[in-house]
């Protein structure tokens, strides 16, 4: 009897746990624009469902907090209700027996602080703040606001060229993004409520694999406006601005310090992730608009070939998009030894075609971001004997995409996590001989919600090596622009929301040189906003519409499908060279993924307000 009962109970718990997985999924797929108090109420209800019923504060108190929270949510409460609710939550926090009640109340108190303005808006104005309101998840999460449902529908109808031009309406780098975009669009895909997010990047890749971007004619430019804009930096952000300004009819001159365009896409991202010839397809298309002149090998700034003063004199506006080009360094003993390089230098050389030979060498890479993975996987391809990535925190704390970490491991990279740099040892000739690290333990979470790492009080670890690659972040080369509102601490440009550099009329800046090192799609998004604002600044409101009619949606397919993942070439093969690692989708795979798109631009909030969401 007794044993049977345990089994039964376990069965119920298992069922509940499985059922809760759906709950977790639902919570994870929470759409953008939901009222945080609605989220809080749902949180509270689910917290209360966990009460065991023993103690008054948790059993009876949470119920009252929930009632008051509902009043606030619906705009029926006054300040007294709010104060009573906060008092009660504090009492619960003070008196709760266990974490069930304590944490529920704690979360309420946190949300009251975090969303104070929203609470006040509900109480005083009986409405949410203006920015609350749902939006199409993928479009609003894309920093360039690409019409994702639109191009997926076009791919579904085999109109690949139209899909590419629709993407280019907001992002002139469909190919680069097809290969390496971090696809924030997928994070809140509504499809995740049913099964898993649509593989949006994979579909984009399918589109550019069907027809090369430079084979798709760009929309016609507006007639010439007679205005000239200088763009400093020929990376993704600068070229994005150039593309839109060119379509608007402005003459654009791009000043690029290096011998080729592309910025970090060419000189930071290894060929195996983004093949240079494919990057050229995007760049060719951008240049094909016709109003863009490129001046390569031309640095801008104080003491360079061209000064900012010259640009401000000769051009109607200037856009600075110089990126973040120098590697950060840590002050550890031995960092000046021979064989220690910054990641950007190493990847830059490879980008120029100077592939180092690491045969017989052991390589240590310091860092946990995508750049660290790029270095590590490139080092493998440079024939290193061993490659070790040393990172202060845990693997799950790494900022690199999980697929990049996985790819590196498959190719033989060893992760040495929870190890902080201590010193670099060198031999008598000053050449690196080993990297010494201190073991760390994970500790209290910081205010930003990251787990801290501290000395674990374990012995030092010595990793013998001949090459050390520092991949711990990048800085912008700010000296030539110092008087242009560069933040002295962050070394980035200070700009308004419009991308206009603070204190300047005609100077705009965007991309990594404003945000610090970030994603390509963020740089592209900033480039587009800059182009629109430069056009406004020049006194225009130019349209650059290419009239593409988007297919009407098919019926929503709500059957549960597995997600089509992109596969890589075998690790054994791919690590031998810099050829692209990722395989594209087949036609069948692509059509299945297209069919999964729920067309949130049509179903749900995407159609209201004349589609201005």
């Amino acid at each position, binding site marked *: 009897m007794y044993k049977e009962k345990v089994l039964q109970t376990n069965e119920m718990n298992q069922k509940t746990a499985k059922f809760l997985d759906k709950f977790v999924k639902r919570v994870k797929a929470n759409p953008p624009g939901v*009222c945080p*108090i*609605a989220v809080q*109420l749902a949180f509270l209800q689910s917290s209360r469902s966990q009460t065991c019923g023993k103690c008054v504060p948790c059993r009876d108190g949470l119920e009252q907090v929930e009632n008051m929270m509902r009043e606030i*949510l*619906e*705009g*029926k409460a006054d300040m007294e209700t709010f104060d009573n609710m906060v008092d009660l939550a504090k009492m619960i926090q003070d008196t709760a027996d266990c974490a069930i009640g304590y944490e529920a109340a704690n979360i309420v108190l946190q949300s009251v602080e975090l969303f104070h303005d929203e609470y006040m808006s*509900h109480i005083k104005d*009986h*409405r*949410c703040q*203006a920015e*609350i*309101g749902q939006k199409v998840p993928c479009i609003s999460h894309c920093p360039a606001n690409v019409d994702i449902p639109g191009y997926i529908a076009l791919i579904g109808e085999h109109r690949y060229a139209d899909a590419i031009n629709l993407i280019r309406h907001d992002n002139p780098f469909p190919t680069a993004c097809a290969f390496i975009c971090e696809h924030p669009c997928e994070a809140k895909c509504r499809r995740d409520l049913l099964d898993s997010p649509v593989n949006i990047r994979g579909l984009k890749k399918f589109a550019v694999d069907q027809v090369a971007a430079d084979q798709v004619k760009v929309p016609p430019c*507006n*007639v*010439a*406006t*007679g*205005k000239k804009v200088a763009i400093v930096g020929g990376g993704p952000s600068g070229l994005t601005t150039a593309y839109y300004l060119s379509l608007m*009819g402005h003459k654009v001159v791009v000043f690029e310090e290096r011998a080729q365009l592309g910025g970090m896409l060419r000189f930071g991202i290894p060929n195996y992730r983004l093949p240079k010839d494919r990057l050229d397809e995007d760049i060719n298309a951008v240049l094909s608009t016709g109003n863009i002149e490129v001046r390569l090998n031309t640095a801008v700034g104080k003491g360079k070939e061209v000064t900012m003063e010259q640009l401000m004199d000769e051009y109607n506006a200037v856009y600075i998009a110089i990126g973040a080009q120098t590697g950060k360094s840590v002050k550890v003993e031995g960092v000046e030894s021979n064989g220690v390089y910054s990641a950007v230098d190493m990847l830059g050389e490879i980008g120029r075609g100077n592939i180092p030979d690491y045969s017989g060498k052991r390589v240590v890479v310091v860092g946990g971001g995508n750049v660290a993975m790029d270095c590590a996987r490139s080092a493998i391809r440079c024939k290193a004997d061993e490659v070790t990535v040393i990172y202060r925190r845990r693997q799950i704390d790494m900022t690199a995409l999980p697929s990049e970490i996985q790819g590196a491991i498959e190719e033989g990279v060893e992760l040495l996590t929870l190890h902080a740099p201590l010193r670099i040892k060198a031999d008598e000739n000053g050449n690196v001989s080993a990297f010494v690290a201190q073991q760390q333990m994970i500790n209290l979470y910081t205010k930003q919600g990251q787990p801290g790492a501290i000395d674990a009080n374990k012995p030092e670890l010595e990793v013998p090596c001949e090459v050390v690659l520092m991949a711990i972040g990048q800085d912008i080369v700010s000296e030539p622009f110092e008087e242009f509102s560069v933040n002295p601490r962050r070394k980035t440009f200070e700009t308004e929301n419009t991308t206009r550099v603070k204190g300047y009329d005609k100077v705009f800046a965007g991309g990594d040189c404003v945000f610090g090192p970030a994603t390509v799609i963020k740089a592209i998004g900033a480039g587009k906003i800059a182009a629109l604002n430069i056009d406004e600044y020049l*006194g*225009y*409101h*130019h*349209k650059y*519409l290419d*009239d593409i*009619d988007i297919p*009407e949606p098919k*019926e929503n397919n709500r059957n549960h499908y597995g997600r089509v993942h992109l596969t890589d070439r075998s690790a054994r093969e791919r690590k031998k060279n810099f050829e692209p690692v990722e395989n594209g989708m087949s036609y069948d795979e692509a059509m299945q993924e297209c069919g999964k798109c729920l067309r949130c631009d049509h179903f749900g909030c995407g*159609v*209201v*307000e*004349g589609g*201005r969401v």
Partner: protein
Amino acid sequence: METTKTLVTITIDGVQLSVPDSLTILEAAQNAGIRIPTLCYLKDVNEIGACKMCVVEVEDKDNLVTSCNTKVKEGMVISTMSEKVVKSRKQVLNLLLANHDVRCFSCGKSGECKLQELSDEYEITQSCYKADAAKLPAKKENPFLTYYPELCINCQRCVSTCNKRAGNGVLHNGKIGTRTLIDAPFGEDWKVTDCESCGNCAAACPTGALIAKNHKHYRAGQVKKVLTTCPHCATGCQYYLVVKGNQIVDVEPANGPSNKGLLCVKGRFGSFNFVHSPERLKYPLIKNHETGEFERATWDEALDLIASKFNEIKKQYGPDALAGFACSRSPNEDIYMLQKMVRCAFGTNNVDNCARVCHSATVAGLAMTLGSGAMTNPISDITTDVDCILLVGSNPEEAHPVVGMQIRQAVEKGARLIVVDPRDIGLSKRADIHLKLKPGTNVAFANGMMHVIIKEGLVDEEFVKTRTEGFEELKKIVEEYTPERVAEICHIDPDHLREAALMYAKAKKAPIIYCLGVTEHSTGTEGVMSMSNMAMMVGKLGKSGCGVNPLRGQNNVQGACDMGALPGDFPGYQKLTNPEVVAKFEKAWGVELNKKPGTHATDVFGAAIRKEIRGLFIFGEDPVVTDADQNHIRKALESLDFLVLDDLFMTETAQYADVILPGTSYAEKEGTFSNTERRVQRVRKAVQLEGEMRLDTDIFIDLMNRMGYPQPQLTSEEIMDEIASLTPSFGGISHRRLDKGETLQWPCLDKKHPGTPIMHVGKFARGLGWFYPAEYVPSAELPDEEYPLIMMTGRVLYHYNTRAMTGKTPGLMEREGHSFIEMNTEDAARLGIENGEKVRVSSRRGTIISTARVGEKVSPKETWMPFHFPDGNANVLTNAALDKYARIPEYKVCAIKVEKLSPEEQNA
């Protein structure tokens, strides 16, 4: 993309149908006469499938589908009334009613409410669910519109209408937690929002949630609806006057060809209060010259006095000492009879209409270059599928709001927009490029455009060769107008000029739309001809989506010109100089006609002062308020021997009259208006008011007979038949055709002729189009040291000319009721004038007090005033410098000074 129509076979409720696959299930059902209930659905505007009332069951589908936005597919078997469907609809209604305050007895929409109708149909009197939405306060500060959140079912019809139809985008969705609110801008801050109070949202609301205040005064079933034409601007919006008893209580939009169901604030809320105004003249008045007071008279007394006085003047000084002005707001039939009275009974061609002061330059200019002085293309044609719109001297969002809405829609859909205007008008915010040129420099601008077009090789050589003449001469002139020189004249950036020229010339379909910013200059006619020069040079005439399109100012100012209220033209622009024409009219009218061309209205005043004109009959005009240089007009009216006024109200001008006759408004008579696109539309009688007012046609007929011309009594319909018999371009137009629902744009040559939407196709009315070689001539009065600022005048959205009509609607006066002058921040700062401060404004002709609105709308050294307001009338200041062809005054440019008032004056 053009898709070929494919037919599919479907079955709806057992009926097999073959329908195009482009239809939705709802459309297919509607076409087959099968009713599917809808609530949130508004065709082409709100097809979002939100309310789920239109669900149907489709065989082999698990879910119910929304018929409003689901396309038919081959083999579909559809049930519109299955048990599942009906149950679901009932649940929808229960859910909606739960939060809908069912207070139908006090709701103005009771009887028209879609929710009420459907609840009745599905037999639901009360929701089975409990309501718990917060009760939010109504937004009702806007004088025209109210939003009651507790009646709102969140169907989105209003929001979609504002965004997609009105193109204004001021209605949004807000949230309170998980509920949606409509952010209706009708609360305390209604005056500072961008809401234009057009009320198109209210017209779209299926319940009483968003409702016009006018609608509170009646219930469906208590009213009759009379289809007629709006009496404000010349867009020619079609609407119904909603009549309760003998009182107009509301206006409802009709789906007219020019308004497509849209209306503006004036049309919807300002077009009937004046009809019932207690200030209406109710009986004839004769001035007692001893007391200076007007005294009530009988019609016989009044008309006999006029007949004898006019006959006396005619006898003593000849017929040309008499003159008559027609009313551009009255129907074609009235105007026709007035000009017939002047020509046949007065015996003179001294007849004109107020087009003289607005678009006479258009009538003259386009007649000279193209052969016909009217808008070449329909409104719908130039705002639906066009690549680029060149908008010159026109602020349609305010002066022709329903055209403005359609331009906004076009721009939203991707049409490029070039705004050429000295002010930052609303549309300049949406324009690809705005040429903020100095007032009075249109000819230079156009010549500059053509200079670039020629230099860039963008001339349509074939068109120029085969369809036009005079190109070489024009080419020589515009050679001098380099962008740099034009930029200096116009105070614009030469790059903007080049770009505008290329953009316009290269666009496939590009209309020029212009208005009084082009005409109201001492060089207005040349400005107009410059517009046709540009269009001809690039072959953009006689084609869809192109043309030269003047937006006429008054509801029937097009008609007033068409009907021959012009000193040199008989109806249909038949020339007095053509003996055959004169012979035809002499025969038809049975009288020998005066062959001497008449005096233009604007010259009548000078002639009166010189005693060349002694007797004047003014039908529905108020030149003291509307004409340039008010003091000059007053002097002229005082100089007349005998002045007769036929009007609705005791106007400023009426004070000078010897006899005042009470006429009837558009709501009390039958007739037709010709809108700006030459579309002849019906005006219908809605009410019969108490008082001795007479039909204006009857007044004219009576007076003609009393003066000795035997004019038989005719109805409005019969008058139109006479017009048709004598006017080739109206040959096929009759009330009967219009009443059958035909929509006719002249020329309409015979009873079978379908009318002419686009003019000059294949051949110009003139034969060959003529390039008029116009040189830029500066405005007559330029700023100097004493009067350093340029002043322009214009309309605001909320009023119409003298406000004789709009001033009778309190809400319009509340929104905008006083004189103001826009000036640039720079000038204001120099003069120490703050925004909202009272200032003294003077020109060589007079001084007024107005209120400064300081900002960047106008350029430095320039100012702008509306001419509606008597508490600071801009026309005291304006200059009566006249155009050499059209005799139009230069309202758009005069030199003024603005002065700060002393503290005592401020307080006074």
